[in-house]
């Protein structure tokens, strides 16, 4: 499966990684990753969430040490034990979450990393930040600015190989264009860039070749420019997903019940006035690119944050949630994407599942162990949680951890399940189980609101889809029409294919 096609025996690669592997306890992050980057090329690294991209990047930059495999840079075999070592060898990464120190001024950050100030200025100008005040502190700066500063700092060292890890995720379109231009300059000078992005259009516009990872393995190297996108998507999804997609293509007609939750003109931060209703017995999908207000939507429904304005009606009654406890009482429960956000890592599976059973002052007293055990065991069985390492939740695999987070609400009961990207970084088998469960729950009368960052998966679980863009609800469609193409267009705020093409070109 890991055969590498499309690779002409050209000039020796600048970077050659073979068979890199890494596991964290029981979780295998990287099985066997290969990556070859030529001098003077922009090389994309693609893969679904949890495919092992970030682990691979960390190994390449010395932030992690691989369990197996080799890295050759400029013909010499290397094994970096720290980021500074990788740096000296000419390999620098610009991360998605900026790593400028928040409490040092930009100038001090430069001093700390021994960055030449004049070159930094030069690249800053090239990125459009002329006359920037170096005495500013990163803590006080906006996210896009930080990304540009970090990029300029990396460029100032003029590395042989520059890694851009999801750098465009936090950038508006005009800044993305500038970043692309700079990346091309780097290539034209004979140096190389590894570009990591979820956005196919960006990859197609910018990159010469793309390496695709799936489940911790390299599954192919593709030239994205001439219609390669299709192949990339196929490689990323893999045969299993296709099979699942085929299976889900004919969703059974849902038996939709009365309205569970009605949202009127809800506003909070990025979320600028959204209205929709969710019925019992249905799975309502939310499709959106990163940061379009979906986080705020889920957080206000779950009582994590109080909306600025607008109304949430549950079962026909207007509710105000000041605390998750309020939402839980009304029957709305949240499953966050980040399992670390919802689990007690040092505590047992049982305590984690039973946590909502003691969440009120009136339940502070003695616990009936038999009753608790029964309820917990039932939830464990239903979700098929692997309890071999149940004494501490952190010993479980990511998929099992997420199941524990769901089992908690099965044990305590709920009416409306709010799933915020519940399958982020989870293996395909567990994904199927979770989507199966979600459908089952809806079929048995619950209401489910589901956001997933992986658009192709929406069709697997949902009956209906709403699309958020720029904090607004821009589209609504039945699941049958919500294929990836349609969702991608809608999620980009586009309505016709031609327009989409045009935008992608402009982005380039």
């Amino acid at each position: 499966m890991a055969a590498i096609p499309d690779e002409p025996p050209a000039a020796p690669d600048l970077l050659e990684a073979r068979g890199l592997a890494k596991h964290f306890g029981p979780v295998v992050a990287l099985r066997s990753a290969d990556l070859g980057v030529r001098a003077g090329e922009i090389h994309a690294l693609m893969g679904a969430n949890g495919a092992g991209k970030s682990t691979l990047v960390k190994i390449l930059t010395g932030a992690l040490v691989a369990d197996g495999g080799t890295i050759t840079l400029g013909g010499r075999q290397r094994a970096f034990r720290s980021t500074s070592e990788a740096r000296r060898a000419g390999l620098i990464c610009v991360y998605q979450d900026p790593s400028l120190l928040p409490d040092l001024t930009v100038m001090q950050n430069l001093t700390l990393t021994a960055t030449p100030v004049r070159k930094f200025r030069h690249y800053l100008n090239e990125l459009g930040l002329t006359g920037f005040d170096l005495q500013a502190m990163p803590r006080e700066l906006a996210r896009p600015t930080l990304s540009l500063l970090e990029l300029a700092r990396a460029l100032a060292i003029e590395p042989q190989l520059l890694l851009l890890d999801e750098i465009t995720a936090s950038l508006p379109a005009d800044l993305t264009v500038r970043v692309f231009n700079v990346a091309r300059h780097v290539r034209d000078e004979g140096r190389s860039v590894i570009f990591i992005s979820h956005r196919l259009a960006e990859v197609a516009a910018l990159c010469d070749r793309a390496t695709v990872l799936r489940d911790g393995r390299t599954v192919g190297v593709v030239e994205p420019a001439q219609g390669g996108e299709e192949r990339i998507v196929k490689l990323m999804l893999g045969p299993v997903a296709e099979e699942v997609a085929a299976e889900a293509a004919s969703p059974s007609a849902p038996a939709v019940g009365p309205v569970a939750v009605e949202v009127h003109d809800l506003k909070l931060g990025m979320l600028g006035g959204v209205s929709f209703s969710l019925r019992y017995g249905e799975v309502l999908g939310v499709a959106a690119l990163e940061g379009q207000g979906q986080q705020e939507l889920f957080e206000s429904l779950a009582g994590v944050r109080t909306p600025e304005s607008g109304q949430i009606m549950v079962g026909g009654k207007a509710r105000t949630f000041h605390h998750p406890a309020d939402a839980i009482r009304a029957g709305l429960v949240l499953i966050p994407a980040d399992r670390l956000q919802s689990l007690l890592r040092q505590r047992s599976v049982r305590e984690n599942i039973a946590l909502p059973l003691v969440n009120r002052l009136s339940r502070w007293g003695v616990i009936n162990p038999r009753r608790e055990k029964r309820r917990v065991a039932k939830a464990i069985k239903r979700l098929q949680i692997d309890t071999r390492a149940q004494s501490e939740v952190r010993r479980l695999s990511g998929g099992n951890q997420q199941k524990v987070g769901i089992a908690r609400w099965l044990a305590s009961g709920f009416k409306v399940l709010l799933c915020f990207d519940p399958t982020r970084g989870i293996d395909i088998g567990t994904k199927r189980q979770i989507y199966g469960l979600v459908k089952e729950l809806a079929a048995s009368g619950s209401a489910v609101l589901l956001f997933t960052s992986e658009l192709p998966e929406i069709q697997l679980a949902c009956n209906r889809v709403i699309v958020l863009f720029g904090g607004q609800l821009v589209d609504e469609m039945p699941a049958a029409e919500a294929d990836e193409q349609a969702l991608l267009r809608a999620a980009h705020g586009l309505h016709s294919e031609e327009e989409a093409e045009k935008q992608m070109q402009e982005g380039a």
Partner: protein
Amino acid sequence: MATAEATAPAPRPAGVNVGRAVRRYGWTAAVYVLFAILMVATVVIKPDYGPFEWNTLTLAALPLAFAAAAQTAIVLSGGIDLSIGPLMALANVLSLHATLGHDLAYSLAAAAVVLLVVTIAGALNGAIIVVTRVPDIVITLATSFIWAGVALLVLARPTPGIPLDFQNLAQGSAVSPWVPNALLLLFVIPLLWVPLRRSRAGLSIYAVGSDRNAAFRSGVDLGWTRVLAYAVGGFFAACGGLALSMTTGVGTPLAGTLYTLSAVSAIVLGGVSLAGGRGGMLGPVAAAYILSLIPAVLIYLGIDPNYGQMIQGVLIVLVVMIGGIGAVLRRT
């Protein structure tokens, strides 16, 4: 990518930025204003406040100021040291042993050795924390027993005998009655700290306390930097111990006990974030003066100076709450 609104960050004008200055130096300025108000109040309460009283204050504040500086260096790196007081006591009793019956030149040389020894003791705190990976608070709690025990081994009971010449280094006022030596001795702090802050090593201390992950990515050696912070802390604690010797003339094995917690009070009041990475030396030093002034003011007012501890406690809680409210307001 139709996020078409151009959100390019506007170029900022270089030069004075008032809002930023307030954010960065506001707290420190407020601490100095508070101190000034307290001083004015003191003079109002005690119209004959003169160089003698001022000298007494500087003498009382000197050891605490050093203790606060020591704690600041460590807290900035994201740690905390509960053994500052015992380290001061160790320096204090060592200096008595070393200087007893000697002339000034010899005493100074002995003091240098004491500084070195206690700096190493401080570094040892840091090294144990880094090597064992046990939380700072646990290790320094344990080493506070160790250093206190060592101090007791050096000297079993309070013993006078610090040479007068050596005492006069702090007690006199060579320049003017209003500029006592004890005030001038504070310049030891910037003498070490200012160059350090400008160097990569000093920036690393802030970096480690500010965001350990980002510091690691910036190529900072986390272990060595933390040891360095504890060594700097040890050095200032040693200065504090020597200050005790000079201001009291006595070697007291239990002298430091109170200073550990008072130093934490001073840094909190001085605007150093206990989470690390934020703050400087100016605030805590002024806070040390404020904390030393309160009991004096109470005495001038004819109030039981025991109220001083109460006031200190209430002050700290208030200050932290105000800081907390400020942080909340800034977020929204």
